[in-house]
Structures are given as structure tokens and as C-alpha cells.
């Protein structure tokens, strides 16, 4: 029986090692990527954010629409007029696939406005986008992919931002409840690589 016990120890060591080796400790849930080929080359992918249900935080010094309601945004002059929003991001099938941060800032010395997006998809990677605040025809803003991480690291391209109001937005008292969605459309282009020597 001693031999059986010792054999069991070896078996336990082996099973523990094998389990850790073969079984993933972390398994992120991944929704299938919905990517289409863009007409002028590259791939395009659309995301959207439903407002107000996907909005996690709105923070700015004006405190005009603080979210969550008991958010204590730091009342510090040094932060200036930066406005930061946090969202959940959905794919074209309306499934939540990631989170995002949007920062609208004004550089005090140069008076240059900027809008920056940070999109984080846990199973894929992240994107950092610099958006031109100028509104284009159709209500679009155009941004440039500055960098990405993991699967999205090697991609370059652009991203458009557009607010689409819900036509059925209701009025509550003197305030109009803003319902709608923020549409983000990314176009990716991979860098050229040598295929044949």
C-alpha cells in the first residue's frame, strides 16, 4: 500500500502539472469580430455606444451632468475644462465587447482642442485614437489611429465618430432626455510586408 501511496504522489504531481499546462487559467469571452472589406482597401469595423444605458461616467469641472449621480469630480483648477466619459462599447450585433474612454481637452497654452478615444477590447487589444474636433458634413468627426496593442498593434487607419440621436427621444419637463448612440467606424490597414524574398 505504501507503494500505491507513493505512486499516487507521482500521479498527483503529474496531474497538477498537466492541468496547469493544458488548461487555460484565464479564458476571455470573445465575440466574433465583424469585419468587412472597405471599398478602397483595408478592413472596416463598426462599433456603437447606446446612450444613456452604456455610459459609465461623465466627469467635468462644470459638473453639469455628473454620472453616476454621486460622482465626486475633483474641483481642481489645474484640471481645467477637461471632460472625461467612460462607456461600454458594442459591436454591430449590439453585443458588449469592450469599454472606452473619451477625453475632450483644451491645452491651455496653445488653446488647441482635442478629442481622444481609448478603446479597450479585453480579448483583442486596445486602440488609441486622436480625433479632430471639427464637425464634418453629416455630423462626423474624423480621427487617426495613433497606436494599438496586441492584435491591433500593427494596424494603422482612421476612425470616425458620429452622434445619432434617437428620433423617439422624449421630453421630461423642461429637459430633453438625450437618447441615441455614438457610432464609431474604424478602418484598418496593415503595414506592407514582404511576402516573397
Amino acid at each position, binding site marked *: 500500500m505504501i507503494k*500505491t*501511496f507513493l*505512486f*499516487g504522489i*507521482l*500521479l*498527483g*504531481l503529474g*496531474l*497538477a*502539472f498537466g492541468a*496547469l499546462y493544458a488548461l*487555460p487559467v*484565464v*479564458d*476571455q*469571452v*470573445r465575440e466574433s469580430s465583424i469585419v468587412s472589406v472597405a471599398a478602397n482597401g483595408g478592413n472596416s469595423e463598426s462599433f456603437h455606444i447606446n446612450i444613456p444605458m452604456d455610459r*459609465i*461616467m461623465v*466627469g467635468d469641472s462644470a459638473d453639469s451632468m455628473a454620472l*453616476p449621480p*454621486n*460622482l*465626486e469630480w*475633483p474641483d*481642481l483648477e*489645474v*484640471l481645467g475644462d*477637461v471632460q*472625461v466619459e*467612460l462607456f*461600454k462599447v458594442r459591436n454591430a450585433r449590439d*453585443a458588449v465587447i*469592450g*469599454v472606452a*474612454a473619451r*477625453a475632450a*481637452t*483644451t*491645452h491651455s497654452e*496653445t*488653446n*488647441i*482642442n482635442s478629442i*481622444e478615444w*481609448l478603446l*479597450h477590447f*479585453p*480579448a483583442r*487589444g*486596445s486602440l*488609441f485614437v*486622436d480625433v*479632430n474636433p*471639427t464637425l464634418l458634413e453629416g455630423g462626423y468627426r474624423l*480621427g*487617426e489611429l*495613433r*497606436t494599438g496593442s496586441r492584435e491591433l498593434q500593427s494596424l494603422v487607419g482612421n476612425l470616425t465618430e458620429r452622434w445619432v440621436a434617437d428620433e423617439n427621444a422624449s421630453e421630461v419637463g423642461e429637459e430633453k432626455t438625450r437618447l441615441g448612440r455614438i457610432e464609431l467606424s474604424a478602418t484598418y490597414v496593415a503595414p506592407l510586408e514582404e511576402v516573397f524574398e
Partner: protein
Amino acid sequence: MKYLLALLLGAIVGALLFTIGLIYNPFIGVSSVSPLSFSNEEQIVLSYSGVADEGILFTNDGESRVQPHPEKVLQLWEPPIRKTSILATILRDARNQVAGLGIKMSSLSEDTNLLQGEALINSVWYVYLPNRGSVFVQQSENRWGFLRDVVLAAYRSSAKTWKGVWTGALTAGPGALGTGHVTGGTGEFANRELLGVESLSVKAWSAAAGELAAQGTLTFEFSESPQPAGSSPDSGRVESSD
């Protein structure tokens, strides 16, 4: 039957021995010193509170040890983001003055390999420094040392708490020296690439609430000269008129 019980008992003992060997593996070291500590290059050092309640906002799936803050914040319960957390916090400079704002998004990494002492987290930071600009940080963190030295020690105590001083460099990549990749956004950081390292210093930890006294540090170092402005497409910045 008794042989089966002996085999089963032996297997349990074997698994326990393996677990102990894995945790106290002398070949797995944890760096307590940032790779940027001994550098003569210009650095930016920012600190933030590692306690979720002391930040502006913290949210996760709502079922984890650290509770979301403030109350009624939207939680990340959907399956694709259930292993993700978001922290919004104030960043302070070396003189403990408010320097800016930081947003950190962290997700458990599928590259986690406990056999090699890698408990990895993929995290990204958006750092906004008024009057200076913004940067984006991407990194993978290794929390193995923290789990072994703080969390495990807390569970072994009767009060399920740990007190002491633990300092470790969390960043494990993607840089070859265990540094994170920092991309400049606006202001003086535009068109620049930096190196970044995040460190954590913990003084008290509780199994019920997580960090009770902790401070995180972000260190950025300029790695190269600014790229020419024409090397990237003009982003068409808008200058507001007076």
C-alpha cells in the same frame, strides 16, 4: 478499496506538493526595482492611490473583492468585459501636487502562465497632464509576486489581512526590459515614444476589501528624439480663436 484510497490520498498529497513547489519556486524571481530606476534620461514620475475608494471612480463586475466606487456606478457584468476593471484617478507629481488625470483599464490576460510565475494582466492607461499633454500606455503586468507575498500571506493569517511594506515593479512588457510602450498624444508628447513602468507599493491588504493602503507609481522616460512633424498625417487640430 484501500488501495484506491491510498492512491487518491497520494494524488492529493502530490498535488499539494506541486502547489507548494510552484508558489515557493526559488527560480522565479520578482523584480522590486523598476528597470528605469538607474537611468540618466529625463523622466516623469506620477503617483496615484492604489485604494479604489480613494480614486474618482472604480468599477468591475460587482462580484469581485474590491467593490465598485461610487455606489450606483454601472458595473461591467457582460461576459466579454466581466474580467475587466476601470479606474479613474488623480495623478500627482513628485512633490505630491496634482499633475493630472489617469484612466486605467485592466483585463486578465490569456497569456497567464502560472508554471512560469506569470499572473498577467493586460492594462492600458490614458494619462492627461494639463499644460503638458496626454499619453497612452500599453503594458502587461505580472502580479505573481504580489499574489505570493501579499495575498497568500493574508489568507494564511487568522485575520485574513496583511500589513508590511511590499514594493514591486508590475510592468512585465511588451518592452524587452520589462517596460511598457508609451505613445504620446497631444502637447509636448505628440509624435514621441516613451518607455513606461508601473510600480506598486502596498502597506496593508485585506481579503475582504483588497488594498487598504497602497500607492501606484507611473514612470515615463523619453526614449528617443521627437519624430519630425511630417512623419505622420496631419490630424488637423483646431485652434480656438480668442
